[in-house]
């Protein structure tokens, strides 16, 4: 049993008690939404900083959704940019060609949702070969898929072919990004700590044993891929309307690599880790812009050093108290105590 700390003196306890209250996080989220709507309307936050925050939000969605497959399910998927591309193109085609010009602001969430659904459908198609293949072979399947998507988009002249799609309005605003980011983090966090989530974790730990224990591994893999690609599609739709221009080359293997780096930088199998990874990577890249070309020399070096000293990422396999469900708290605290006594060894 946990010995509940009854000391009210430390700030940490005060913070914990505050956040444990029922109304706290909904209040914070509402405040955040209100702030972002105000910032968007009254422009008291510099437009460039707004753009960076939008990028951070999009990257958080991408990272959290990839973490579901790579971190929690233990697969190695390199095709995330392909799902993003599908979402981006679907959403853009809808707003540019299908929606009447006046209603675009109103119908924007529908476009993004449609992008997500299209990407989810493609995710379903990718999940099917994943049954037979494991490990590195799955990496190839997802890699090949990513390149196929890029190649197909390059060949369809109707969507602009290799030169890309133009003409999107700047519909991605701070409030929308805030909304979708919060939604995706919430959904995936809940998914991971649900019964289904335990199935996902069991597939990672030992797939055959999970199968024997009546976990429907097929269904778990399919649903995980669908959810992950859905959110990647949403991120793609938001990205397209922030940049106002997309072309197939933006969604190639290098973009996938970027998302991979964010996932492993922040920490696998950790929601807070995904958020941290996305934030640090995006903002660090922007801050280091004055370095010019040397920026991209410095970043990978940092990544390599980090990997050597913390192979599972900053928050690898751990979670902040915020995201852990209360029912698990007891077990997790005991586990952490035990870990402190016996240093790291098994994954």
């Amino acid at each position, binding site marked *: 049993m946990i010995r509940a700390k009854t000391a009210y003196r430390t700030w940490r306890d005060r913070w914990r008690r505050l956040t444990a209250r029922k109304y706290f996080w909904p209040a914070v989220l509402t405040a955040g939404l209100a702030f972002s709507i105000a910032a968007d309307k009254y422009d008291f936050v510099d437009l460039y900083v707004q753009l960076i925050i939008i990028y951070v939000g999009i990257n958080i969605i991408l990272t959290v959704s990839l973490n579901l497959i790579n971190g929690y399910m233990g697969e190695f998927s390199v095709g995330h940019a392909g799902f993003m591309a599908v979402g981006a193109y679907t959403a853009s085609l809808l707003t540019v060609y299908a929606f009447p010009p006046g209603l675009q602001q109103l119908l924007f969430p529908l476009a993004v949702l449609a992008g997500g659904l299209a990407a989810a459908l493609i995710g379903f198609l990718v999940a099917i070969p994943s049954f037979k293949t494991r490990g590195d072979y799955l990496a190839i399947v997802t890699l090949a898929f990513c390149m196929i998507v890029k190649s197909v988009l*390059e060949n369809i002249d109707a969507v602009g072919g*290799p030169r890309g799609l133009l003409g999107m309005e700047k519909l991605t605003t701070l409030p929308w990004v805030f909304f979708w980011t919060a939604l995706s983090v919430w959904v995936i966090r809940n998914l991971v700590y649900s019964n289904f989530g335990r199935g996902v974790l069991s597939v990672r730990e030992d797939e055959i044993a999970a199968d024997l224990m009546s976990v429907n591994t097929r269904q778990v893999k399919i649903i995980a891929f669908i959810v992950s690609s859905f959110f990647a599609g949403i991120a793609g739709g938001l990205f397209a309307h922030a940049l106002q221009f997309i072309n197939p080359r933006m969604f190639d293997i290098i973009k996938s690599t970027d998302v991979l780096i964010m996932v492993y930088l922040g920490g696998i199998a950790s929601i807070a880790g995904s958020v941290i990874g996305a934030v640090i990577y995006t903002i660090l890249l922007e801050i280091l812009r004055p370095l010019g070309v040397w920026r991209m020399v410095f970043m990978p070096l940092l990544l390599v050093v980090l990997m050597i000293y913390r192979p599972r990422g900053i928050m690898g396999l751990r979670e902040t108290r915020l995201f852990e469900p209360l029912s698990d708290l007891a077990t997790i605290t005991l586990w952490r105590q035990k870990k402190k006594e016996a240093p790291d060894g098994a994954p």
Partner: protein
Amino acid sequence: MKKTIVGMVLLIVCALFAGGCSKDDASQIKIGLIAELTGDIPAVGASCKNAAEMAVAEVNAAGGIQLGDKKFKIKLIIEDNAGKADQSASAAQKLITQNKVVAIVGPNASRYALPAAEIAESGKVALITPWSTAPKATLNSRTGASKKYVFRACFIDPFQGGVVAKFTLDNLKSRKAAVLYDVASEYNKGIAEIFKAVYEQNGGKIVAFETYTTNDKDFSSQLTKIRQAAPEIIFLPNYYSEVPLQIQQAKRLGITAPFIGADAWGSEELLKLCGSDCEGYYFSTHYAADAAGETTRKFIADYRSRYSTTPDDVAALTYDSFGLLKQALATAGKNDRQAVRDALAGIPRYDGVTGIMQFREGSGDPVKSAVILKIRDGKFTWFANAKP
């Protein structure tokens, strides 16, 4: 450990907010430059940057531009688009919203100019692209009407493609042509299609129309197909870094037909990368360094003394873009985006180092002549003029 991470994240976020605050420097005119300094065509970006810096230095040396009763100096803010379309777009965004420039010059390659032009149009900031010849850069992609804020200093491909096609038919007397072009790039694809249309309209026959994607290095398959078709001449509307590979591989496969190109050949780097393989071929471009008029010769001499190389067409066109901007600023009389744009749109005729530019009402595209250059003794030499 966790505290340091949280602290680091907060610090980074604060630094971003602090860095985001831009100082408003009202005593200078800020002009943005987006150039391909790294990526697949760095020579183009370097020429552009050099010419821009030279143009700005000349203006500042004379004390600046007279706006009202004061003279303002020009501050040039250079952004590298790293040869990527999305970075072009975000560089344009940054220049407009964070650096608060009054106008933008660049990018050069059409595939990078297009996204930046979109951002400039929606951000209501004038953009002059020195070198992008694809017509889509100044046209609204949905309505087809002219964009209001995008201008260029060069001719457009419908004119250039026609020039090359007619030159091939009339001067080189070739009736059967093959084309190898990059399907992933706006400029290459556009001019290839225009060449095909004009060529066939005037009695020629296109026997092979092959494609590749940007960054491809192996063209053996497409060139073998072209060899099968036995053309009399091969049109390569591609950039200076790809053409040498294509010509060398073609020769290795035993293709003896000559090659002809367009203005993307125009960099000195082409001669370095191609060696003697490109001897005797023609291409269309914006200006000829060795057949220059008075103003052009002065520009070439200044450029040579500053950078010890002959300026290429990108440099000349960038210099002209800045000349246009200078005139617009002087006419507008104030450091205001809309006024500068209106003044630019109102220039009917400009005599630059690349020739006479005539602007029509409502369009950002000048009407200009082209020149045909021949590669002789490892140098670009003037061969013919082509008037519109």
